[in-house]
């Protein structure tokens, strides 16, 4: 446990030392701000209040920003350690591979949550500014479950990115590979869920599409099947990462 905390601390530190973290943060926060202004103007033009949380969490941020941003966070994690040779230095101490993988995962997850902080702050500020007789915006429950959904989707994405990073010692390859898988599967599942003609394909698509799940989450529906699906998929990718790191040591 001690070793794990020590590794986690180091991960967070390295993350915030790297310039790429601030570039990512700048763009993501700018997008969140833009998204919020757009959301308010939609509401001002008569969009229903129930749509507000959806626009916040399952709008363009989810569709276009996350598949780019998450691989940028995770590309460094194993690829850099391999390139520098520090993986050898780490694994010849009493560090166990699962500890290392989990530390990297949670380090990236903390940064990911930091990325979403402004959006959450906007939401809460908005609810303070609203006169109390106006029907609440945002709806507290829906807002919280939306945030939970974003974190669940994020943990799966981070696990995928981490897995890609463990396959190569080249950060660019890790980033592009991660982007291809995340964006490809996102669009593919969305196509299956909404556009495909065959009803059984549509059902399968709806089971797996993050977009569909996020619509539910931001309406305040927390479906335990979906929660378990995200957690178990993330766990599977983390397990695969452990196996890759254990086997590819040259």
């Amino acid at each position, binding site marked *: 446990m001690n070793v794990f905390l020590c590794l986690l601390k180091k991960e967070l530190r390295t993350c915030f030392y790297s310039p790429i973290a601030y570039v990512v943060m700048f763009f993501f926060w700018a997008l969140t701000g833009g998204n919020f202004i757009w959301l308010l103007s939609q509401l001002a033009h008569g969009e229903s209040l129930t749509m507000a949380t959806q626009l916040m969490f399952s709008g363009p941020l989810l569709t276009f920003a996350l598949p780019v941003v998450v691989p940028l966070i995770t590309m460094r994690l194993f690829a850099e350690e391999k390139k*520098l040779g520090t993986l050898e*230095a780490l694994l010849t101490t009493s560090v166990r591979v699962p500890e290392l993988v989990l530390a990297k995962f949670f380090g990236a997850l903390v940064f990911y949550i930091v990325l979403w902080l402004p959006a959450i702050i906007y939401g809460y500020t908005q609810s303070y500014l609203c006169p109390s007789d106006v029907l609440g915006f945002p709806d507290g429950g829906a807002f919280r479950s939306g945030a939970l959904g974003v974190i669940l989707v994020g943990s799966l994405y981070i696990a995928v990115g981490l897995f890609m990073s463990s396959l190569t010692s080249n950060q660019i390859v890790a980033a592009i590979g991660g982007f291809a898988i995340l964006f490809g599967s996102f669009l593919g599942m969305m196509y299956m869920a909404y556009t495909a003609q065959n009803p059984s394909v549509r059902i399968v698509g709806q089971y797996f599409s993050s977009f569909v799940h996020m619509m539910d989450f931001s309406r305040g529906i927390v479906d335990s099947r979906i929660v378990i699906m995200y957690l178990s998929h993330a766990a599977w990718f983390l397990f695969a990462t452990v196996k890759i790191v254990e086997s590819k*040591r040259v």
Partner: protein
Amino acid sequence: MIKVSGVTKKYPARLAVDNVSFEVGRGEIVGFLGPNGAGKTTTMRMLTGYLPMNFGSIEVAGYDISKQPQEVRRRIGYLPESCPLYPEMRVDEYLRFRAALKGVKATGRRAKINEVKEKCGLTDVGKRIIGQLSKGYRQRVGLADSLVHDPDLLVLDEPTVGLDPYQIRQVRELITQLAERHTILLSTHILPEVEAICERILIINEGKIVASDTEENLHKKLHASSVIEMEVKAEKNAALARVSSMEGLDVRNASELADGWLWMEIEADSASMRVELFNLAVTEGWALRELREQNHSLEDTFVQITRNKGAE
């Protein structure tokens, strides 16, 4: 301290280490030599538990590496070949991180870090960022890191590669000092380094241990006869005839030096025949100004051993 028996490591395309066995006793400094690609780094990586082996067993301080890897790792300080460090961290920060990982107790950690920093000459650079340090300092940071948990065994993979002669000397002195308290296994292909530091030499070639002995013994084994150099004031032909007529001595080479002295290279059955040569000079009335055994350099020995075995 180390007991390696029958270790084999196969890579997909080739056999990197082939049935290697050796032992290193507590407190020894052993030089691990071999041409590039001979299997030095692979052996060291298996020894430190980074790479799994295909066959054989390795014991460090009585612990089997495949059964109790954690115990083994706790007792080894390992400096990998490229001396990997995090360039964005400060020296102190890095050493604190590594000390914590290696289980140095929080209460004594600061003192321990200061101690290794002092040993490695890093006291002034604690606040510097590792990426901005020179290669020599980085090497010292790596060395300090390998020492921080007070390991019984130090495994150093080419610790002086890429350093300037002055830094090499410093690192070498440091290693010699460390030898008082630790067992050291040191790989390198800089031979004078081994001659300067190590008590015993292991030579590996094409994945096999081809020699394991002290430097002197290696020379003795390879060179049954010894070569003696002698400089006398004497007439050339007479002197050559006189020396060659003695039993067990044979003049290989001779020349008259510019200052009128005669230089001879004599092959002798043993180096102790210098006494006979001295007596000869006395009885013949030659003035004698040099009489010495020619030393074989480790380089000769090394080349000979690795070439012989390679040609077999």
